[in-house]
């Protein structure tokens, strides 16, 4: 399936996705959109792992298992982050990072 497509194209695509995530992480103010940017970054790393595994070491499975673990970490991170965001919303009635600047009360 991947014949005729150089490895570099996959890496460039992942680079674009990664730096879109970085841009969003730096400019967004809403906590949920920051979380979305983090998901973009993690996803681009997964593409890199799988492309390297398929093109450079097709007889091993290390990249695939590593990206499975990355996906598991991303899922648990999203669950905990959203729990924290909802808790912040209850306390401050906003999830704008610039309005939430006190740790407690």
């Amino acid at each position, binding site marked *: *399936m*991947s*014949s*005729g*497509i150089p490895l*570099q194209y996959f890496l*460039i*695509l992942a*680079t*674009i*996705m*990664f*730096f*879109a*995530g*970085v*841009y*969003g992480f*730096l*400019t*967004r*103010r*809403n906590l*949920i*959109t920051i*979380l*979305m*940017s983090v998901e*973009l970054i993690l*996803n681009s790393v*997964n593409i890199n792992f*799988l*492309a390297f595994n*398929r*093109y*450079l*070491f*097709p*007889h*091993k*499975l290390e990249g*695939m*298992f590593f*990206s*499975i*673990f990355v*996906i*598991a*970490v991303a*899922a*648990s*991170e*999203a*669950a905990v982050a*959203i*729990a924290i*965001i*909802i*808790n912040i*919303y209850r306390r401050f009635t906003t999830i704008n990072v610039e309005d939430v600047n006190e740790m407690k009360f």
Partner: protein
Amino acid sequence: MASNQIMFILFALMISVFSVLTVTTRKILRAAVFLLFVLVSTSGLYFMLNYQFMAAIQLTLYAGGIVVLIIFSILLTSHISQKFETSGWKKNIFSALAAITGAILSIVTILDYSFSATKEAAQEVDMHLIGRSLLSVDKDGYVLPFEVISILLLAAMIAAIVIAKKAGPAKTILPKLNQE
């Protein structure tokens, strides 16, 4: 041009356009939907790389789980029609500068480096092999990271419940139990 190259170009265009739109659109629900498009086309890329299991995980866990979670929390915390105020143009410009500089640096490095593949024959990735490797303690086994990730998932699940539950009802349960 072969059909798989056309598919790759389609997926690449979708991923790059929608990931830029995810971080620049001013409506939050649209951002979530664009994120969904990015994740679905990423699973298409995994199908192209012949990792069907990863593509299925990507579809069910990312596109099915995380995006739904994000959309629910958006509905809980903000109005749908609400638009963000744009952050200051100075911050935007400098962030874009940092991102574009980093992207150009990485792309130049990638194009400069010559990747050398091994000559060994490709391995067929089927469910049997994945299950065996995940639970084996041999040389190519992954049982230790598997156990670590299980404990991490359990801890995250309990933490999410403890953090998000309301403090009120937990205290009122005890007296009722005592009465019975």
